[in-house]
């Protein structure tokens, strides 16, 4: 997407992420496939604070590398995803989560879509009831119905 080049233009200006190559390749010694999957899933849902348009999984910023290492270590210590997230939030605020927790400030975010859906569904129901009234003669298309 264009985000890639926009990101890079911004990065070039900031001179923070630009020096590093684009791909974050980080061979960490996972115990098994499940742990690797868990790690990839978790870091994919966390935001890099330096290259802010990238996840911790994708970013090659030094900061992201270090946090990946930390998260990996915490996983080896048997910490749960929630513990790791809490640990990060205590240091970097909920900004680091791509999944904003439900809070007074995010009520509109999480309930906005259901609300819009309800309103839209209401309008559709009104429309359908009016247009499908049995009193209206239903015009069927004769012949080739297309």
């Amino acid at each position: 997407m264009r985000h890639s080049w926009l990101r890079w233009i911004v990065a070039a200006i900031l001179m923070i992420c630009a020096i590093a190559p684009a791909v974050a390749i980080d061979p960490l010694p996972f115990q098994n496939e499940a742990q690797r999957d868990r790690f990839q899933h978790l870091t994919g849902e966390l935001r890099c604070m330096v290259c802010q348009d990238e996840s911790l999984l994708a970013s090659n910023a030094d900061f992201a590398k270090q946090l990946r290492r930390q998260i990996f270590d915490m996983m080896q210590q048997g910490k749960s995803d929630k513990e790791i997230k809490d640990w990060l939030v205590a240091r970097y605020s909920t900004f680091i989560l791509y999944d904003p927790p439900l809070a007074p400030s995010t009520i509109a975010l999480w309930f906005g879509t259901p609300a819009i859906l309800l309103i839209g569904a209401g309008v559709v129901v009104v429309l359908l009831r009016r247009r499908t009234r049995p009193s209206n003669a239903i015009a069927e298309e004769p012949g080739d119905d297309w």
Partner: protein
Amino acid sequence: MNEAARKPLGRFVPLVVFAALVAFFVVGLVWNQSHDARFVPSPLIDKPAPDFRLPRLERPTEFVTKADLLGKPYLINVFASWCFACGDEHPVLMAYRDKFGIPLVGYDYKDAPQDARAWLQRHGDPYHEVITDQSGDTAIDFGVYGAPETYLIDAQGIIRYKHIGPLTPEVIAKELEPKIRALEQGT
């Protein structure tokens, strides 16, 4: 979508929603003029600074801990020899080091000690004390994500203020100085 024929006001709904959206954009543009989106407020404000135990830059066998610095307010300035913006900030620190009225502790972040020493020798040393964090692990506890960053910590070891990015005379006059004065009056 037909009921609007009865009450045409319904036809104005899209316009009103759009107007609200534009209003948000205006606020956003104004906000953008005065803020840098990269700077995320720290959750550690008004919370105790993390415990740390870090070696001195000059005498790496000696360690400085949080407890050593308790008792009076101080500033921690995160810097590194590899950090471009720190070079921009440096002259400001040199000019203000004695005007702050409280100690300025340098926090050398993910840097080779010899590089940091050479950097301070070349440009001048504005710090009353320099500690080093080569691994950057302690810095994570502080929520550091980009040098330079500056923390104001009070006599009880509580973080009272954090600035991300280079300190400028403007930031010092408008934000940092009043916070320092408030701490001094409080104690």
